[in-house]
């Protein structure tokens, strides 16, 4: 029986956006299990990204608790949250968030230099099929390639969980599939618990479990009997 890596209970989050208040999450109870491939779907504004940010230690809930294994993240100091992200979480963002002034290899080194047991940057980049573009700057790479650098950067630390926020959102279909294949491969080969946020419904076919968020709460949860490989996804 796989153990949960992340557990949330009653998580709420209220934002002050300019002059208005937005309740992004309304009491979410949720678990992410070891080696699981989870897809979080929902319309824009349903609270996916907020949940993801809270799971990744990038943000704190207004109320409720979040546990990473036995560690209560909601009680962790900023310093402890940083350690948590540094050692356990790999992030992939919609807009890659690469350092424009660093090459592909250096962007990955940025992470490998500060973690305990990283894989070499070259190896991580080979894993995403970029072994021939090591010394290219982000501006010299296509969007798909940039996102693959971001994936390499996220997995190079051998994280326990991989959090992907709209990883294909800024990509064309072809590049999107390549990125999904890489994520799928990491999940399979490294056994990393993976959560992918998307509003792109066909992607949920890849998941072992699909959670749907609606207006800040979990609306529906289903298990896929058979997972479709990334290469067969169409949108």
């Amino acid at each position, binding site marked *: 029986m796989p153990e949960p890596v992340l557990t949330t209970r009653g998580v709420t989050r209220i934002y002050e956006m300019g002059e208005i208040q937005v309740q992004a999450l309304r009491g979410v109870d949720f678990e992410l299990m070891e080696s699981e491939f989870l897809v979080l779907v929902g319309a824009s504004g349903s609270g996916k990204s907020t949940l993801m940010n809270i799971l*990744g230690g990038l*943000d704190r809930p207004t109320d409720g608790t979040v546990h990473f294994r036995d560690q209560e993240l909601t009680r962790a100091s900023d310093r402890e949250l*940083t350690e948590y992200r*540094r050692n356990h979480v790999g992030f992939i963002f919609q*807009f890659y968030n690469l350092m424009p002034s660093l090459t592909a290899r*250096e962007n990955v080194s*940025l992470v490998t230099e500060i*973690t305990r047991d990283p894989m070499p940057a070259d190896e991580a980049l080979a894993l995403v099929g970029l072994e021939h573009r090591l010394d290219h700057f982000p501006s010299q790479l296509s969007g798909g390639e940039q996102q693959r650098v971001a994936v390499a950067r996220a997995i190079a630390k051998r994280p326990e969980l991989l959090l992907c926020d709209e990883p294909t959102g800024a990509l064309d279909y072809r590049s999107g599939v390549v990125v999904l294949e890489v994520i799928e491969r990491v999940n399979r080969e490294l056994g990393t618990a993976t959560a992918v946020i998307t509003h792109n419904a066909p992607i949920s076919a890849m998941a072992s479990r699909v959670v749907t968020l609606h207006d800040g709460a979990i609306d529906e949860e289903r298990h896929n009997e058979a997972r479709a490989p990334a290469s067969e996804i169409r949108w």
Partner: protein
Amino acid sequence: MRFSPSALDRKLIRDLKGMLGQGITISLVVAAGISGFLTLRATYSSLLESRDQYYEEYRFGDVFAQLDRAPESVAERMESVPGVALVHTRVAESARILMEGPAQSPQALILSLPPGGDAPLNQVLLREGRWPGAGESDEALLLDTFAERWEVAAGDTLGVVMNGALRSVRITGLATSPEFIYPMPPGGALIPDDERFAVLWMDRRGMAPIFRMEGAFNDVVVRMNPGALEREVLAGIDGVLEPYGGRGAVGRDLQPSNFILDGELEQLRQFSTVVPIIFLGVAAFLLNMVLSRLLHLQRTQVAALKALGYHDSEVGLHYLKMTLGVVIAGSVLGVVLGWYLGRAMTLFYGNFFGFPILEFRMGWRAPLAGILIAGGAGVIGAFTALRKILALSPAEAMSPEPPARYRPTLPERMGLGRLVGPMGRMVLRELGRRPLRTGLSALGIALAIAIVVVGRFSEDAMNYLMEEQFYRAWRENVTVAFAGPTPERAIREIAALPGVAHAEGMRVTSVRMYAGHRWRDVPLQGYPDEARLRQLLDADGRLRPFPDEGVVITEKLGEVLGIAPGDSVRVTLREGRPGEATLRITGTVDEMLGMQGHMRMSELNALLAEGPVVSQALVQIDPRDVDALEARLMEWPGVLDVASRDALVERFREQSAEMLTVMTLILTLFASVIAAGVVYNNARVAVSMRERDLASLRVLGFSRREISTVLLGEMGVQVLIAIPPGLWIGHRLCVWIAGTVDPERYRLPVVLSAETYGFAVSVILVAATASALLVRRKLDRLDLIGVLKTRE
């Protein structure tokens, strides 16, 4: 092992390369601040050091006294005065040198030299040639400044009238001494004179018989024991010399040349304290502002680094290094430049003063202080910005900033919105949305304008002072000095000379004015009842009447002595009936030049127990007739000197203004660099911040020209609103400096010329235009798709 910087350090190096233009201009601002600071500090301390060494090595005396005549044996009695270490007696006589040229016969002071020239005090520095021969009565050393002015060389022969007889004197060498750094003609002259005043040093045994001073002296230089009280030594010496016609001993601070030198150095000290602080302060403020904005642009990168698991301290260190990279580059440049300019300026002033020893020293404290102030400001600026970003959770920092709250600005609400069109409204709203940011940018530009004004202030002040003093307060263009009190008839004779439009007499005598234990030697000037040529002007240019009775003194003199109208002061008279008298102070006048007392001539004549006599004639004459008048008057017996105003102004300009010109040049240069740095960086940061909005406008179909209008409009408004406060702040800073820089010799009036204001505005406008062009180029290359695709 190969040096391999971490990925973060590589990012640092590349980021610095990427913002090269901004990095360089920020570094230049730091460099200008630091080098302005160092140049002035180092110049001042080096000159002080050089002067002290000169004084020490050439054994400059501590106390000086003149008397009528005393036998050499009196020297021993002075040596026994408590506190006196060494006494050097001399014979000092006045003479006249006959120079070739239009009616010139400068005054000369002849000083005796001990055998071999080796004076125990006030030693003479032989610059070239040889010492006069022992016992020679027709050989002399000549003061170098005079020799240079008149192109006299060692080996030349001059005609000198000594004790009424013309003698040929062979100049064996050119020399100077610490007492003539500024050649001050005797008799309380205000302005050094290297043209009409010379010093001749002659062998005492050769010189004494000419003046019948064998075995006697009339001039003394004294060195005090360390720790001796000057007041007591002066009193002791005065006590010994009184029966021999002693005219009152003075300490080193009032020795004429040293008094002027002290004033100049004091001015430099005050300038070198106040001005660099303003410069460094302004540079620090700007650095702070520019860096905090630059870092704001790195917001998403900071967030990404945090998301990847970098601690706040690591991110902080990264940006600290970035800041320090810029600050250190600027500091190094600033120190090197400061060293170079400080050295050049020390050499310039050192040569100007004629110091034989010039030591340039910068030390380590001033550079360290400069770097710490500039660096500290940069680091603080960077961290205020960084703290705000770090305080955000990474998720927040990475998400786009909440939509800015715009609202119609005041002019729009007043219904003027339709006048400016949508572009104009965008400009107004952007400025109005962030009044603090707009205000700070404008303040930065205003400060830059202000220091350009400060840079040119002293030159303006000096020009105004000369204009007021020499052309408004004095309306004569020739001054005739008589050797002694002269009957008023002489004035009428001068008035009858060809070309003379008007002539009037003046009685001037030097007195020592006491208030408690404080005193100053000041000229008392007596004016005829219907004086037309001299006017009393205060610093604001207002005309003040001459007193009907009593004495009106320079306000500064009242301040120095602590006396006010209504007080009575004790004075020692030197002429007429030597002794003491009491004068009533009836007013003060805020004069810019010198410290003196003004009174009615009749009252002064009565004070001196003399008839209606004058000591000077003021003459208004057609400028074309000046030379002829001089030639004629110099032949009159009893005429000591004929001076034309233009020549005096020329000398004053050389002495005081030349010093300031160099400083003005340097300060203006630095100020301009700082100004340009601010405007450019402001513009660049604005581009980065608004890149996305502007690209969106382009996508919507606006032309390059139109979007430039939005950004450049903002810049333009900031510059325009900065100009009036900038000029005002500049003026206030000058008032502050003038209050701090306060030599006794003159007051710096804060009268800024239209040219200075115009220049300051021009510097900013040029910097703004150049920045606008660079920004325009950047806007032309805006990557529309790229900007819109990614969030940043």
